[in-house]
């Protein structure tokens, strides 16, 4: 029996999981229109590589990863690209972002799928392929998985943790996935183990999911993977909290879990990794719980880009008193800005809200310094202090009190007897600090450019003065024994030699992380350049 550890604080909100866990996962039908956002992951937005009117196949890449922390986006079904435009996306701001709309043709015709021989592949190439298959964390943070599957400078990451805790109320998509598709989760875990060189694989599941525990235990038979049952407490599904429970280790403040030799993935990420590597299928669908104020709460396997209202309609029309929809759980989720906002890789749950299910919080009262929030904080911060600093816009102080270690789990909100929206204050403070940092970076660039401009103007002035001085002094008498023509010839030869030396020293750089077609393009350009060079040198050789 493995020794378990406890993390500080935490809360026990009403679970509401039984509602949506009675029916099996159903495949959602094709919607009439799919809206696929280009920015579904953390990092750079994907670049569209299709044009309006183009026919695309199911699984065809339509958005290319831009940079290392980014991942590709694919067509969820076959059809025609009807628009590439700014459209409503599921984001708390309600601001539009770049989306590709696809009109399905109903054929659902796949692009050619090639399984990857991961054991034989070069690790770096395998990671690039995963980025091109759009792999990102399916637990909600959507961090590009290929970047997490890189042991980096260390030889390996000894402990791999699969996160099946699913601690937020209402959500059951991971639970149902574990019950029904445990084998593929384990296949995905094997690939992760191979990529990280992990010697220990732990699967953490809360004790309120007995069927999932049983299914995964059965799937783990014959492997040395260990299914660990953890007590139900919110937020045990936070990556750092689960790491603490299972290993007793905590990453340093502001640090990553790899620093203590642990990497954590959601079970759904392992599942999509198995689909990607063993079947060549990019991430074009996910499990999503539709629950709350609907007739038949259930889990669906739905295509990315399906509008939220189409999904909710599958669970029976929303009841009359439905006010709106929450994406994610009630603790960390946010209200969807519009019901046509599409499903994205991060959407684990859609909850229809009503005044009865989620009554509006009473008006906030002054903080009474009861420190219940500090007792509930799983990161052992001082939420009441952070609140004062955020409220007074003392951002430096807030940072000193480790604002950026806050995981925004909402435990402090949940216990606050004064109903203060604490997390909202922390989010406000965090985004203000980020905005200031962006401004500071921009100011630094502006300073450098201004200084360089001053230097350039000075240099140009000096050059002009020097030239003038040289002219007024007149041509110098040539060195004895050389004619003026000789001198000129020597100067020209010296210049040619310098240019040659410079050209020889120039090597193309920054091409390590480029996709294959860009590399091909670079090669073609280089070939053309070599040809031109050759053609230019030839007449010189044969005067």
């Amino acid at each position, binding site marked *: 029996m493995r020794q378990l550890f406890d993390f500080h604080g935490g809360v026990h909100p009403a679970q509401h999981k039984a509602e949506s866990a009675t029916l099996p996962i159903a495949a959602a039908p094709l919607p009439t229109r799919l809206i696929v956002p280009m*920015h579904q992951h953390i990092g750079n937005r994907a670049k569209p590589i299709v044009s309006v009117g183009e026919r695309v196949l199911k699984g065809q890449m339509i958005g290319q990863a831009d940079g290392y922390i980014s991942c590709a986006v694919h067509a969820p079904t076959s059809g025609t690209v009807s628009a590439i435009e700014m459209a409503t*996306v599921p*984001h*708390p*701001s309600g*601001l539009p*972002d770049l989306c590709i709309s696809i009109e399905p043709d109903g054929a659902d015709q796949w692009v050619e799928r090639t399984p990857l021989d991961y054991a034989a592949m070069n690790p770096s190439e395998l990671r690039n392929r995963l980025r091109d298959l759009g792999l990102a964390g399916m637990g909600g943070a959507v961090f590009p998985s290929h970047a997490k599957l890189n042991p980096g400078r260390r030889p390996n990451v000894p402990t791999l943790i699969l996160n099946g805790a699913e601690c937020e109320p209402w959500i059951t998509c991971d639970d149902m996935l574990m019950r029904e598709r445990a084998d593929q989760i384990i296949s995905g875990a094997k690939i992760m183990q191979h990529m990280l060189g992990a010697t220990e694989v732990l699967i953490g599941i809360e004790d309120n999911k007995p069927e999932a525990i049983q299914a995964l235990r059965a799937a783990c038979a014959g492997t040395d993977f260990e299914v660990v049952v953890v007590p139900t407490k919110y937020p045990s599904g936070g990556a750092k909290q689960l790491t603490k429970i299972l290993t007793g280790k905590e990453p340093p403040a502001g640090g990553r879990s790899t620093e203590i030799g642990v990497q954590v993935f959601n079970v759904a990420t392992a599942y999509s990794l198995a689909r990607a590597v063993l079947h060549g299928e990019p991430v074009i669908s996910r499990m999503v719980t539709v629950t709350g104020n609907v007739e038949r709460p259930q889990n669906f396997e739905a295509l990315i880009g399906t509008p939220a209202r189409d999904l909710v309609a599958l669970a029976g029309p929303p009841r009359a008193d439905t006010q709106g929809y929450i994406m994610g759980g009630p603790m960390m989720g946010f209200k969807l800005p519009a019901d046509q906002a599409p499903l994205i890789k991060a959407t684990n749950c859609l909850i229809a809200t009503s005044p009865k299910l989620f009554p509006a919080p009473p*008006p*906030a009262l002054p903080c009474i310094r009861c420190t219940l929030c500090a007792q509930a904080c799983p990161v052992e911060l001082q939420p009441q202090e952070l609140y004062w600093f955020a409220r007074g816009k003392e951002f430096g102080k807030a940072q000193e009190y480790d604002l950026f270690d806050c995981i925004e789990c909402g435990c402090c909100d949940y216990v606050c007897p004064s109903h203060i*929206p604490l997390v*909202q*204050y922390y*989010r*406000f403070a*965090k*985004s*203000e600090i*980020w*905005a200031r940092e*962006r*401004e500071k970076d*921009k*100011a*630094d*660039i*502006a*300073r450098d*450019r*201004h*200084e*360089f*401009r001053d230097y*350039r103007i000075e240099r140009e002035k000096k050059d002009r003065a020097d030239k003038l001085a040289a002219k007024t002094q007149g041509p110098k008498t040539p060195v004895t024994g050389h004619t003026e023509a000789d001198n000129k010839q020597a100067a020209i030869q010296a210049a040619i030699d310098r240019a040659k030396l410079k050209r020889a020293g120039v090597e193309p750089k920054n091409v390590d992380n480029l996709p294959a077609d860009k590399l091909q393009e670079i090669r073609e350009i280089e070939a053309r350049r070599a040809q031109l060079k050759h053609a230019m040198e030839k007449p010189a050789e044969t005067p």
Partner: protein
Amino acid sequence: MLTALLAMAGLALFLGLVLGFAAIKFKVEESPLVQKIDAILPQTQCGQCTYPGCKPYATAIAAGEADINQCPPGGEEGIRKLAELLGVEPKPLNAEHGVTKPKAVAVIDENLCIGCTLCIQACPVDAILGAAKHMHTVIAPECTGCELCIPPCPVDCISMAPIQEDITTWKWKYPVYSIKHA
């Protein structure tokens, strides 16, 4: 008596040498105060403070020649930070130097541009690209919004476009509560 005198003199000589060495070895090229002030200034290089750039203004503040309330792009927050650094009372922005505007970038109407290069020469951060008799364009991410390119343009083809908030620059709002009618 003599020993004590010699000891004190020796000590004084030794410490003097150490200080002298440190003064040469760790010489500060520029007044650190100027750099600290310059770090607070927004680097718009707009010259609204009447100095030809942020650094000269910072130097003037450090020398006590300029007041801390002459920088409109820095706004109230900039003045507050300067006041904190210099240990003086913050004061409202001097309206003579202009008002704080929302962040904007210059946009060249490329149909009207005649390619005169006057704006290129005016830009303090070399953020305008173009050549004589060829269309010019603003490198938007590098533009500080100083508006110095607007007056020299002979065909008035440059305008300022406020920077719109998008998903990557969106900020969570300060929590406010709506007052409900009872």
